[in-house]
């Protein structure tokens, strides 16, 4: 499991970073989305992976070992929300930039393809 | 798999059958998505998943949890209800869009527009 998830994080990050270095604003926003997927999984995986663990406390709680680590999840939730907000903002800014400069290059000047 | 050990054998087999059937229908549906020749044919395929595929899986789930909890649980039914309501909307709009796009391209395979549709 760990190996698969690590590889997944790596692929997501690599795809995202590649897009991050591209010249078009749309590529950038997709890249940032992919990177944030990678980061979210990364944070999540930090607590160690568990399948079949209880995510919610049962009334007849035995030990706490049977539960999934909640803190990384809470952190990821915060990260998701913040990532959502900033993605939205970035989108609007890139649209505004496109409107004002007339093109969708990240630098607002259309030189390269 | 500790939870499932609590199921009586008949239930376990029933659930297994339901699960397999559900997966099978979904699988065939998606296979159709891959195999069928044009868009208007492909658009029919996923319905297998949304109807019987989902139905069997829900049946498996309902059986499993009702037996496990010792009381009837129809929670999952809502999935079916919601899906029945939402899938048509998407497909209708999608096909309509495809039709429009094909007409735009002057494709001969689609009927031409009446004045207003």
């Amino acid at each position, binding site marked *: 499991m760990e190996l698969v998830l690590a590889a997944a994080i790596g692929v997501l990050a690599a795809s995202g970073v590649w897009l991050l270095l591209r010249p*078009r604003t749309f590529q950038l926003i997709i*890249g940032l989305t992919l990177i944030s997927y990678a980061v*979210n999984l990364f944070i999540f995986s930090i607590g160690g992976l568990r399948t079949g663990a209880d995510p*919610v406390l049962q009334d007849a709680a035995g030990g706490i070992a049977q539960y999934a680590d909640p803190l990384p999840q809470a952190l*990821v939730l915060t990260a*998701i929300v913040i*990532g959502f907000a900033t993605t939205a903002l970035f989108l609007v800014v890139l649209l505004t930039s496109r409107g004002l400069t007339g*093109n969708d290059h990240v630098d607002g000047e259309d030189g390269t393809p | 798999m500790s939870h499932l050990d609590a199921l009586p054998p008949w239930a376990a087999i029933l659930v297994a059958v339901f699960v397999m059937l559900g997966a099978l229908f979904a699988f065939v549906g998606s296979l159709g998505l891959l195999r069928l020749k044009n868009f208007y044919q492909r658009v029919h395929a996923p319905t297998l998943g949304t109807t019987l595929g989902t139905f069997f899986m829900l049946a498996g789930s309902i059986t499993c949890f009702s037996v496990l909890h010792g009381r009837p649980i129809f929670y999952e039914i809502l999935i079916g209800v919601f899906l029945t309501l939402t899938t048509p909307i998407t497909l209708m709009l999608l096909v309509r869009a495809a039709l429009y796009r094909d007409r735009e391209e002057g494709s001969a395979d689609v009927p031409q527009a009446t*004045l207003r549709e």
Partner: protein
Amino acid sequence: MPDNILPSTILGLPFAAAVLVWLLRSRGRNLAVWLMTGTALLGLLLSLWLYPAVAGGGALRQVMPWVPGLGLDLVLRVDGFGWLFMLLVCGIGLLVGIYARYYMPADDPLTSFFALLLAFMGSMLGIVMSGNVIQLVFFWELTSLFSFLLIGYWHHGASARDGARMALVVTSGGGLCLLAGMLLLGHIAGSYDLDAILAAGDAVRAHPWYTPTLLLILLGAFTKSAQFPFHFWLPQAMSAPTPVSAYLHSATMVKAGVFLLVRFWPVLGGTEEWFWIVGGTGLVTLVLGAYSAMFEQDLKGVLAYSTISHLGLITMLVGLGSALGVVAAIFHIVNHATFKASLFMAAGAVDHEAGTRDLRKLGGLRRVMPVTATLALVAAAAMAGVPLLNGFLSKEMFFAETLAGRHGPLLDVLSVVIAVAASAFGVTYSIRFVRGVFFGRMASCLPRQPHEPPLWMRVPIGLLALACLLVGVLPARVIGPSLRVAASAVLGAGHLPDYSLAIWHGLTTPLLMSVCAFAAGCLLFAALRRRFDGFEATPLTGRLSGKRMFERVLAVLAADIPRRIERRYPSRRLQPQLLLIVLLALVAGTLAATSAPFGFRPRWSSVDPAFALLWLLGAACAIGAASQAKFHRLAALVLTGGAGLVSCVSFVWLSAPDLAATQLLVEVVTTILILLGLRWLPKRIEGLAPESRAHRFRRRRDVFIAMAVGLGVASLAYAAMMHPVADSISRFFLERAYTEGGGHNVVNVILVDFRGFDTLGEISVLAIVALTVFALLRRFRPAAESIRAPFQPQRQVAPDAEEAAHAVDRSLTDYLMIPGLIIQLMFPVILLFGLHLFLRGHDLPGGGFVAGITVAVALILLYMARGARWVEAHLRVLPVRWIGLGLLLAVGTGLGSLAFGRPFLTSYFRYAELPVLGKLPLASAVLFDLGVFAVVVGATTLMLIALAHQSLRRPRQPADLPGGQG
């Protein structure tokens, strides 16, 4: 007045007066003049009053605490040397003040002029009275600053501006070097106190940092004193009003450099480095200044170069390294100040009366201004070193000092010869100055009709000329005691060398040298007399204009090169910046990760084939999205959605349903958002632009970098997963979530209780972003080609136009009639589901955020199905209000606990027994979560709707925009 507060009084007076002059500037120039002269006179008198305190060779110290913590107290230290300078500063300041009153144009209010002059006087006093080297630098830089402002006083002229800038750049640059040097010195000596440093001379000279320290301090001194190669600023500074030149550029500021040399002679002097650098610089400056002065055509230019030359002389005297040299240097400082100030004033008087300073135009003025001519003659004679005047005496001492050489026969002979030669040049330019202005043929066609200047302009010149004469005739009586006091303060009372201040020492070699120099000077003048007027520039050295070189160097080093480099900064281009960030993060992470041994072995834990297959799909989606994002935006968006879905499934797989739900909803909303925006992006068609080799290279490079990053992140993730820490704080949360937080869903309890503060910040971010989006979109201007509605609706609307009586959007309503109805029916269902998610969040997956997004999605569906106008006609959504209320509710809940004496956001939880409903959990955290819910609803809809409205307003004409939406 007791002695121990006198220094501060003397120092404070000019500054106070400067402020007063500035404040009372409406009262006109007379008050300013009175304040200037009064302050200078008072300063002079008070300084004289101090004589008994310093006469014994001791120093008067006044310490005022300023920043004791930095070793930086305001230490005023008046010793004999400083005292002599105080007299000079105040005395000449007084005369310049009087002179300026009559010199400056009548329409100039003079207030800011005198304020600056007073401030300058104070700064100069500050330098000479500093008992702390940092304080010295402080005042030193102040003199640079005020001199800059004074030189640029008439800033409408380009030469004044250039001169001012040059002076500022050179002297403040030197000042910064001086600061560095003083810091080093203080570091070596262990204190910034002057006395401590003066006492630490041996340690300083032995320290490995001695040479850099010396160089830095000398840079300060040389720039200020206009020593070669920094001498060029001084002639340029002659664009200043003449009183300024007389004061700053002959008597005071330029003397600060040599003051510094003399002051630190006991600490830094006496070494080989000192001899070579100081002596050599002095020598070169002496000759160069004198030589250049001969060929100047501008009256003030002659005096400026002469000043450079005399400063070189003083520097050389200090550099030679003997005690006698120091005495001679001090003596010459005073002498030069007197005759040069008077000469400048005389030159100013000539300029004032004749309207020109050009030696070629002037001549014969003795007939119309005899008094000025006489006084200038006396001063010029002093400058030339004519006996019975003060210049002669110090020059004698200078010759005597060159003769006492101890540095090898060649060097000794050379220095004697050069001294005589420079002296001869001095004689030549002095003669030229006097003869060119006052003798010879009466100048015709002068800009003004010259006559004797006002009495009060002549008085200061006369007083200074008188001083030259008095010192020259009765040296021991007039200057002897002061000189002794000053010299002994520098050298130590017991180490005063033998010298005698007499007019006649017998037929000595120095006298012979004087005679030689005088004769040679006269001969030189006679030889060149007719040719002086022809020199446009100084022969030999004139082409190497220091000014031009300075301008060039400054332009190249401080403008051209930086501009060229700055233009290459990738500040206008994002890609290189992001590349640098990625690379640096990669390098830093790699270096850090390999800095300590990696202690884990890869473990092939059980790989669930299904999970592996799942991520095979996820990877395909991610890579697909990356490859499609350029030309097939929709495909990329769909594939990104696929990758998101896969990570959402993984969250479920790994027992995190909350995450899955949130991720899913966020993804839906993000997709809609991006789709809303996609309409405004330009079409991009594959294969239109041929790909260049550079682009291909860049792409390959980026693929490589991206792969490296991916590998790095993956290894870090793997390593971290292999080493989950044993006692994470999560235990605490699991243990207390129910008992103390009142919820079964630990994740939600963390979000709204344990770490509710994070959530508060998070919803603030949402609110901020929504407001920003809204504000930005209010002024949105789409690109020209996207302004028209997309072609689809245009085409579809075409039938509408035929039956114009109908509403605009028939095509829309017809097309969406049935789907729209179903969505409308689902609207309450989704709202119900959202409320459900909200209410159960504390115990089961769900919560305010998810619920909020759900409600927002319901609204958006309605917008999609029915169009914005329809929805806004039926529902009034006030998203900003929602945001405000939500924030208020969340904060209010947090503040509620304050009322119970508990910290912010302390949760309150208990079960309430209600009649029919039974046990109901009441947790204050639910209230907080309600705030979250409201903010999320408001923010999400605000963003989506603001974006959606852009399509709405475009196709319409501007005229009907504001009103008709409702």
